């Protein structure tokens, strides 16, 4: 398979995540959209890592190293964001993203 095919799949995943963040009015859907976007970025990193496979081991594995770090950041982000969602639900009895508006008053 060529590099462009993987890039196209990654672009489609990114777009699905973006649409999920825009169209669904629920904080947990927004989290799921972020996970999809990070997955698409990881797919790009790994595809380019394979693209550079002839450039020596260290250079070729840079993309995979970066993808691992991104996965780790996604875990940290999901844990903290879900804790915040639980707190928002406890405070406002709703997880619609437009309901927390204490700063507007």
């Amino acid at each position, binding site marked *: 398979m060529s590099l462009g095919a993987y890039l196209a799949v990654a672009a489609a995943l990114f777009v699905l995540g973006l649409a999920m963040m825009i169209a669904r009015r629920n904080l947990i859907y927004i989290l799921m959209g972020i*996970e999809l976007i990070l997955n698409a970025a990881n797919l790009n990193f790994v595809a380019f890592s394979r693209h550079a496979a002839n450039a020596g081991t260290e250079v070729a594995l840079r993309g995979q190293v970066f993808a691992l770090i991104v996965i780790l950041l996604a875990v940290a982000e999901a844990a903290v964001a*879900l804790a915040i969602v639980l707190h928002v639900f406890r405070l406002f009895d709703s997880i619609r993203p437009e309901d927390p508006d204490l700063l507007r008053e």
Partner: protein
Amino acid sequence: MERIAFALFAAVALGGGLVALFHRSIVHSAFALMATFLGVSGLFVLLGADFLAVVQLLIYVGGILVLILFGLMLTRPDPAERKVRRVAFVLTAVAVPAALLVGKIAAAGRWAAEEGKLPEPQPAARELGLLFLLKDAYLIPFELAAFLLTVALVGAVYLARQTPPPPPPEEPR
């Protein structure tokens, strides 16, 4: 053979994403997201990144998805969210990403037009581990990432623990 596997994994990933986007029940969406993560993991295998594929399975399917399901269990979804949103809004939310998708795919196709097949993958798992342990490679980012993960998880536990509701904000002091 590789073409068939690629088409299968890409279809699983994108189909799961589509179902997750358009399904009315958020629990079904979460399970459809599992298909997406499995498909991306298969694509990682095709790209020669075996270790990353296993990590993807363990962390996304075993960790983040379970976390999301627990988040669903501990909150109550908005009943109005189950209805399909206003038509114009949905059209905007689909049309803008669709335009972006066409642009990105065109750019990727033009960028990779002269590329033929990808080069053969190198065996990666052992070298990846060595890169994370060597001082002149990625040891410092590795340790920083471990520290960040510890801080984030402790902070998440602190945030999510049961606290009494704060007093109403307009209460006079």
